[in-house]
């Protein structure tokens, strides 16, 4: 071991970084940005779910339960009419609603009474704070029913999902698309970068090939791979992992394919801004990680701080993830306006990325 020789290696390494400002920025700026984003997301999120209360009780007990729910810090309660409940669950304005039946006070006097809880259900565990708030409310109420112990039971009804719906079902729907997007992006950005660095792109540009032909040719080539990968991922998710699916398999596949094509073109576009594979891989924390954090894959967009929601609204993955969940969890079909929007936005990004990728070819070589 020679200290001098070891020092030469260390010095050589640090000298290289001195000229690669981008890598330095990534090393020292990216962790702060990512951690900061994560912190803002988790601390800044509004955690109390919106819950509707339909108090139809003709007696007094219902009002007491409702009042207790209104004061619960676990939920954000509003009064609604039971007839509007399902519609509000569907449009996302409520996470759950509770119906206190007309005979609630009367039945409570007999010692056993049930409350109806309707949960949207697409996100596992979102009924937990509702159930907790209800339990507290009923314990408080039970002491007010003079002379006897009352047994409160909950009748939970899921609009989507159902009792066997678990975390994997929720994340799986998003991850099917995300895995394809991520892998296709990485493979394209590196291959296209190779095309530039090995000099073959220069040769292609000096041939009768048109720029659009290069981009479309690339897109089709990677799409072939991406389609096979999509089929594999989907088959594994549905047949082996048995991820909950209410929707049409072809629609899921269509959304996956759109995401793959978007990833191919994003890769071609971003490859322009990288001079080496090393720099290309750095686009993962820059282009992919914030999208994963902000697209609703992990934290629902509706619970994000408002400023981050604006950011989420302009990210393609937000729409792709929402679309995948709508199809798989809620059984959305093409007649749903939300799915139409998701598909249109993702398709719009595909066109934008194709245009950007094509424009990139000229800029680099002119």
């Amino acid at each position, binding site marked *: 071991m020679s200290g001098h020789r070891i020092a030469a290696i260390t010095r050589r390494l640090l000298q290289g970084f001195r000229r690669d400002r981008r890598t330095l920025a990534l090393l020292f700026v990216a962790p702060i940005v990512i951690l900061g984003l994560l912190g803002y997301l988790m601390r800044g999120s509004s955690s109390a779910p919106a819950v509707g209360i339909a108090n139809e009780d003709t007696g007094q007990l219902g009002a007491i339960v409702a009042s207790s729910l209104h004061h619960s810090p676990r939920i954000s309660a509003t009064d609604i009419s039971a007839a509007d409940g399902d519609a509000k669950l569907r449009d996302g304005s409520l996470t759950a609603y509770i119906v206190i039946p007309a005979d609630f006070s009367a039945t409570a006097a007999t010692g056993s009474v049930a409350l109806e809880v309707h949960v949207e259900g697409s996100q596992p565990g979102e009924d937990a704070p509702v159930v907790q708030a209800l339990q507290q409310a009923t314990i408080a109420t039970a002491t007010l029913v003079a002379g006897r112990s009352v047994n409160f039971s909950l009748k939970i009804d899921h609009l989507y999902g159902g009792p066997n719906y678990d975390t994997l079902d929720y994340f799986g729907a998003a991850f099917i698309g995300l895995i394809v997007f991520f892998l296709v992006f990485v493979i394209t950005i590196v291959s296209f970068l190779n095309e530039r660095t*090995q*000099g*073959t792109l*220069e*040769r*292609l*540009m*000096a*041939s*009768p*090939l*048109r720029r659009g032909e290069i981009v479309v040719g690339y897109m089709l080539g990677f799409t072939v791979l991406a389609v096979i990968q999509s089929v594999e991922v989907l088959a594994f998710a549905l047949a082996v992992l048995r991820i909950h699916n209410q929707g049409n398999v072809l629609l899921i596949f269509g959304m996956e394919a759109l995401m793959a094509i978007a990833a191919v073109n994003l890769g071609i576009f971003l490859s322009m801004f990288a001079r080496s594979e090393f720099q290309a891989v750095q686009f993962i924390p820059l282009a992919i990680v914030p999208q994963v954090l902000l697209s609703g894959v992990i934290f629902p967009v509706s619970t994000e701080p408002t400023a981050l929601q604006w950011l989420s609204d302009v990210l393609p993955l937000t729409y792709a993830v929402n679309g995948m969940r709508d199809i798989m969890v809620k059984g959305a079909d093409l007649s749903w306006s939300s799915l139409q929007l998701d598909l249109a936005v993702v398709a719009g990004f595909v066109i934008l990325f194709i245009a950007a990728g094509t424009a990139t070819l000229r800029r680099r*070589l*002119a």
Partner: protein
Amino acid sequence: MSESFAVSVEEVSKSFGRLKALDGVTLRVPKGEIYGLLGPNGAGKTTLIRLICGLLEAQSGTVNVLGERMPQVGVLRHIGYMTQQAALYPALSVEENVRFFAAINGAEDGVKEALQLVQLYDRRSSVVQTLSGGMRQRCSLACALVHRPELLLLDEPTVGVDPQLRVQFWESFRQMAANGTTMIVSSHVMDEADRCKRLGLIQYGRLLAEGTPAEIRTMGGSQNLEEAFLALAGRKTDS
């Protein structure tokens, strides 16, 4: 512009930032001629070749190739371009590489002939990343001429090629020129320069001298081409 010129470059200048790569270069190459571009590293040879095949656009002056003002996509079908670094797909075989460049030029029927010309027909199934530097260079040449271009731009084509094969390369170039192919070859190897019909000496982005090898010898005042060039280059930089 006379139709008999395959390439005519008129008063072309090109800068990259503050670096003036070409400074008012004028050069005309008649059809069927082998024109040698000579000059030290960084003189502007590659920039000139890239301007001729439309990869770069001149800031001033004009470039006409085969009767068309460049850059023009239609003309590219008739141009073969061999880059300095053997630009190939390393994971494909020799034949797959050549076939690809044939396909994008619509000339798949030329594959076998091109492979035979560079003597890689027997190695056509070898994957490029397993080949030596010289073989890659030959494969790269096959890719450039597979579509039988009217104009062949060769940027230091014989780097890494052994002397024996270099002689064969030049024999092929001579034959192709006899059949009407125009060639612009950049090099800094003087025995290659001697095989060109005319030579242009480029230094600091300017065309310092132009003529047949014999004329260059006279201008430089030496029977040795290398010495003649050094004399010409020195004279211009001193003034």
